[in-house]
């Protein structure tokens, strides 16, 4: 199990530290926040490879953190002899007996810490010091990666060239198979890991024999004829035979079939599902680390549901999953407590979420918890009409819509306010909540949730019982019946209370679209001031 990930100088990451969860890690974040980069970095350090090729072969200038590179160029141009930028990815593993061969203190932890682990560094090749220095006389932000090398080591300071067998990793990317060979590198790896060594050898041998018999039987007639052609140089005979070289080994010809349809022909969602099942199935050599990129891609809602159930049931105690997602559904289903939110300042996760609350959201997977997680500031309201009215009041007060200031207004739609507040508290979000008093004293309602409130950060505002039990009477109370009648365009003979109660949303929309501003109910005004700051 990976206990800590440290990344320095790689793409957007510098001085980045993440302590992942033992089992599920759901990586969420805005676009460009580095979700895929994180998965890529973990895979890079675990396997030493990118898309099946050695890191040093795939290395390109864009791997380097642009800030570090431009600082370097700037300093060098100013005549300072600063060192070339480097990349380092370190994976600190759990201190178990079977990983002790990877154990040592050759890592960046201070104070010195010995634990099993693995690191990948990209650093200037000492053989090219002269060339690098020459280049640095007139540096630019495209680093000369030709003079760089990779250094893949265990924490015990031993160079590694092949992935240590305890670190089996499966990478399930959202890219689909396009190549004509039918199987991409990751799937090949997964398939090969799925077979026992003996099975693998038997398959390989049988495949060779089939190819040999093909050459001897079916091709014989052709060869007899071609042999007389004298088409080759130096009069040597020409013949056709099956390719027996390593390039044409079984794993590029044997592909999974779904209902007798080859893998590359099946749907994109199906492809992802197959990869996940193969990689995670209970098996002696199953992957210990599974990385899934945006499983919601290419899948219908029910397809996603099936896939998530499969992931949940296949995940073993010894498996650690990293899943990047844009979907609240995935998040709620696999558990809010597995959340890792990528932000500009690094990652935040949820160390202390009540298991009840996790279970609560699991039962309501449709809820937009991801919006809660990603918003800068949150306003929680009871329903759509509260949402619409608050938006209008806020715009009247500050001239801009809340979302333009990074404030996301979310309607709880019957969800427990306390659960939502707990989730926000765990995320350390600035949040304001509003609710109807429903005839109960606001102070006792507030006390009920006081555990999750924090001065200047999280507050609940509730209207006084005397000015109305729900939003509608509160509006009438603060504006007077005739103003509201005017805005809503309600005939004098109609019962205002009844109409507003019956047409909640319509009422909110009319107020929101009205040219005339309303006086906000006291609690809403306070809430708007609180969240605006």
């Amino acid at each position, binding site marked *: 199990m990976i206990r800590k990930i440290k990344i320095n100088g790689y793409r957007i990451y510098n001085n980045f530290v993440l302590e992942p969860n033992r089992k599920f890690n759901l990586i969420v974040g805005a676009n460009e926040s580095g979700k895929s980069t994180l998965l890529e970095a973990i895979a890079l350090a675990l396997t030493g490879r990118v898309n099946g090729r050695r890191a040093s072969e795939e290395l390109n200038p864009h791997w380097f953190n642009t800030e570090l590179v431009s600082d370097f160029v700037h300093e060098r141009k100013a005549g300072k002899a600063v060192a070339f930028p480097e990349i380092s990815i370190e994976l600190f593993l759990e201190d178990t007996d079977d990983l002790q*061969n990877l154990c*040592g203190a050759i890592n960046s932890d201070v104070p010195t810490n*010995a634990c099993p682990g693995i690191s990948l560094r990209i650093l200037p090749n000492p053989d090219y010091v002269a060339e690098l220095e020459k280049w640095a006389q007139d540096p630019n932000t495209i680093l000369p990666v030709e003079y760089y090398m990779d250094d893949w080591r265990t924490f015990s300071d031993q160079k590694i060239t092949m992935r240590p067998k305890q670190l089996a990793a499966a990478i399930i990317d959202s890219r689909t198979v396009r190549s004509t060979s039918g199987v991409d590198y990751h799937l090949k790896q997964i398939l090969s890991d799925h077979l026992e060594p003996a099975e693998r050898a038997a398959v390989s041998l049988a495949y060779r024999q089939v190819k040999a018999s093909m050459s001897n039987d079916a091709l014989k007639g052709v060869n007899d004829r071609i042999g007389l052609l004298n088409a080759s140089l130096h009069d040597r005979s020409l013949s056709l035979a099956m390719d027996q070289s390593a390039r044409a080994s079984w794993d590029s010809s044997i592909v999974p079939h779904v209902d007798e349809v080859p893998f590359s022909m099946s749907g994109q969602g199906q492809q992802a599902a197959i990869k996940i099942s193969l990689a995670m199935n209970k098996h002696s050599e199953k992957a210990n680390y599974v990385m899934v990129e945006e499983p919601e891609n290419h899948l219908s809602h029910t397809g996603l549901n099936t896939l998530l159930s499969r992931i949940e049931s296949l995940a073993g105690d010894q498996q650690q999953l990293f899943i990047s997602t844009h979907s609240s559904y995935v998040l709620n289903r696999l558990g809010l407590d597995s959340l890792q939110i990528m932000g500009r300042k690094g990652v935040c996760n949820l160390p202390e979420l009540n298991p009840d609350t996790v279970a609560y959201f699991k039962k309501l997977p449709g809820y937009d918890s991801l919006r809660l997680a990603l918003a800068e500031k949150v306003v929680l309201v009871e329903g759509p009409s509260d949402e619409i009215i608050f938006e209008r009041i806020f715009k009247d007060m500050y001239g801009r819509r809340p979302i333009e200031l990074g404030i996301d207004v979310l309607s709880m739609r019957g969800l427990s306010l306390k659960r939502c507040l707990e989730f926000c508290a765990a995320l350390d979000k600035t949040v304001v909540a509003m609710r109807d008093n429903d005839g109960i004293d606001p102070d006792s309602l507030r006390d009920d949730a006081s555990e999750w409130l924090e001065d200047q950060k999280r507050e609940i505002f509730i209207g006084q019982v005397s000015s109305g039990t729900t939003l509608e009477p509160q509006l009438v109370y603060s504006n007077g019946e005739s103003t509201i009648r005017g805005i809503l365009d309600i005939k004098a003979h109609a019962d205002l209370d009844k109409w507003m109660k019956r047409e909640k949303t319509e009422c909110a929309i009319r107020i929101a679209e009205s040219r005339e501003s309303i006086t906000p109910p006291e609690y809403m005004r306070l809430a708007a001031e609180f969240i605006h700051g």
Partner: protein
Amino acid sequence: MANNLTLAVAGSRKTQGIVEYCANLEHDRRALVATYTQTNQSELKDRLSKFAGDHPGIKTLGWFTFLLHDFARPFFPFMFPRRRIKGFNFDGRPHRMAKGIKRFLDSNDRVYACELSRLAFELIQASKGTLLRRIECIYDEILIDEVQDLSGYDWEIIDVLLESSVDIQMVGDIRQSVLATNARSSKNKKYAHAEAINWFREREKKGKLAIVEKTQTWRCHPDIASFSDSIFDHSWSFPRTESLNTKKTEHDGIFFVRSEHVSDYISKYKPQCLRSGANSGKDFDLDYLNFGLSKGMTFERVLIVPTAGIKQFIKTGKQLEPKPSASFYVAVTRAEQSVAVVIDDSGSSPIGFWNPQS
């Protein structure tokens, strides 16, 4: 108890013993075979791949490599944070007054061979148990060949290993301790060379290991075996060597050869000529091999040009110092059938002179 020391006499097929031991291990057992000399290491590797090639968990390493891979490199930052060992300096020595990291590393961050075992030992303590835990997890068994050649802090390391959960099997011939991994260390000097036997006997008394004596030689003729025994007197309490060599030739046993007969002797028997070192045996222009270098080799016949001490021992029976005793023992036990010693005055020795006329 799983810690054993096998004290084997010269020619008792020690290396084969290790190979057979390994071949009989359970197949998934993870064993490290550590040895001191390069030649011995490649010999062992060869034979292990022949006889125990179906044991994937067996690994052969030189003693220095073992200390470097499993002690010094992984845990170095515990003594010198953020520093790394970048290589190995076999011949160099730190400055006498060197302090701190300079005591262990040269200017290119290469670790001095002569300070490696001290560093390794100190890291066992400094690493707060992580070093030993790692060793206990990656090896079930550690076999150390030529254990008599270890010295200085190596003994402290063995002490720690004896206390660990790893089974320790040691094989050696104390009487052949001519090499030492750190010839110039003053640490544990009292256990240097043949006196190492006392170190082991102390551990045996404390119940930390069992000593097994292997006294049968397949190599040396009975006369040679008993002469070799006489090099160490009773105070050492080494057991008698039993010879299993039953081969008869026209010239078997120990012989003295007068200076004037040396060339006749050589042309008749073509022995391997041995001397203590480059400064000895200058009276004769022969194709010598030094005692130390001959270790591990076998010849049908040897001719030894003795040092003053050896002459004295032959004439009067006065015991040599431990180190020259070990060297002389190595020289004598190289031979299968005959050992000739060049001497003109044999004093009270009962051994007869070779007569070119007979």
